[in-house]
């Protein structure tokens, strides 16, 4: 019998519960084995409360690795009183993904937004006021799911352009390459031309409503003559990105949440080029 996952979110209804597939169960074991950053923090969800309170994972006595009960919430794996807790910033997002068939899409969106909120919380320290995400007007805007990207089989082979388009190609996709229009110069014009060849459309801002099937907002910035970078607006309204082969994240170079890529800290990518709209029909390589 594989591990059972329970999403703690309801007050009146029974919480959604599902069984991991054998493959997911193996991946869970790998993820738990890799989580070794000890913390003295306990997730608030173990104490109950209203709304999203995390996931519990249980393995029965007949499981190949023996019985186990864990609670995962707020980036912390609570292992009970006999073992220290450890942190894992992406395990909740991964667990949420395993329950796609067991959880109503509205509840999935709600849980994703709560996880994203918590993920950005540490980076609000030092700000004059709590960060507020702008409203998302794109029906298709993807959820912030770093767990989908920050795994060994995906992270090294997909870049900011893959991430902005929410399309894993494992080719380190380049704007325009799929259509023979890859930029030769690292300036706004040539890179934007490549992206347009792939199917993206430049827009003045990210305020116009985009109905279902009409995509979501991304933004192009340039490190003059050196490189380009992309951001995307997630369904919570704040923006996220994936710098090269490093992990996807929803904070900028100053560790702040990203309300607008035009004004966030972008390190050497000093030139803001344009906002664009991408869709599921865009072809990149």
């Amino acid at each position, binding site marked *: 019998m594989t591990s059972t996952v329970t999403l703690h979110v309801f007050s009146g209804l029974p919480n959604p519960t599902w069984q991991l597939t054998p493959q997911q169960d193996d991946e869970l074991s790998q993820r738990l084995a890799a989580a070794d950053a000890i913390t003295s923090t306990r997730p608030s969800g173990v104490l109950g409360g209203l709304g999203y309170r995390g996931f519990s994972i249980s393995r029965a006595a007949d499981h190949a690795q023996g019985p186990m009960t864990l609670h995962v919430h707020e980036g912390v794996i609570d292992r009970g009183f006999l073992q220290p807790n450890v942190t894992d910033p992406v395990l909740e997002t991964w667990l949420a993904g395993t329950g796609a068939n067991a959880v109503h899409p509205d509840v999935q969106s709600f849980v994703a937004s709560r996880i994203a909120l918590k993920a950005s919380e540490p980076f609000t320290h030092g700000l004059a006021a709590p960060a507020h995400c702008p409203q998302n007007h794109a029906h298709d805007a993807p959820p912030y799911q770093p767990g989908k990207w920050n795994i060994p089989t995906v992270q090294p082979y997909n*870049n900011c352009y893959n991430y902005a388009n929410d399309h894993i190609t494992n080719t380190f996709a380049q704007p325009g390459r799929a259509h023979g229009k890859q930029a030769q110069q*690292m300036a706004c014009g040539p890179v934007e031309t490549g992206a347009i060849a792939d199917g993206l459309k430049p827009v003045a801002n990210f305020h116009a409503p985009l109905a279902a099937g009409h995509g979501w907002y991304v933004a192009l910035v340039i490190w003059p003559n050196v490189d*380009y*970078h992309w951001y995307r607006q997630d369904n919570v309204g704040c923006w996220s990105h994936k*710098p090269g082969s*490093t992990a996807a994240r929803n904070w900028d*170079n100053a560790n702040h949440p990203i309300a607008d890529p035009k004004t966030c800290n*972008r*390190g050497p990518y000093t030139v803001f080029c344009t906002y664009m709209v991408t869709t599921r029909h865009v072809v990149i390589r």
Partner: protein
Amino acid sequence: VEKKARIEIDVFSGRPNPAWDLGPEQVRALAQLIQTPHERIAAPPAADGLGFRGFVVTFHNGDVERLRVMGGIVDDGHGAFRDADRRIEAFILTAMPADLRQQFSDVLPH
């Protein structure tokens, strides 16, 4: 099998990172610097953000061995060790082709 080494500047987001291969003498010298006993420390957090994120050294001699050199620390995948006096980083900077050194002079360690 002769040991080969490739050094990547982990610096780009969109384009593939720039990289170059070391000559045989340089490979031997760098391997010797790395094999010198060092103070072991806990692995640092993963390099992140936009801009320079360190040098990734990949040795090939049948097996592949990969290390990240950044900020006086070398992460060898099994933990990390201190790069005393930043000798390994200085060696890499010296071995870097002049055009790369010039192109990234604003973001590379001095």
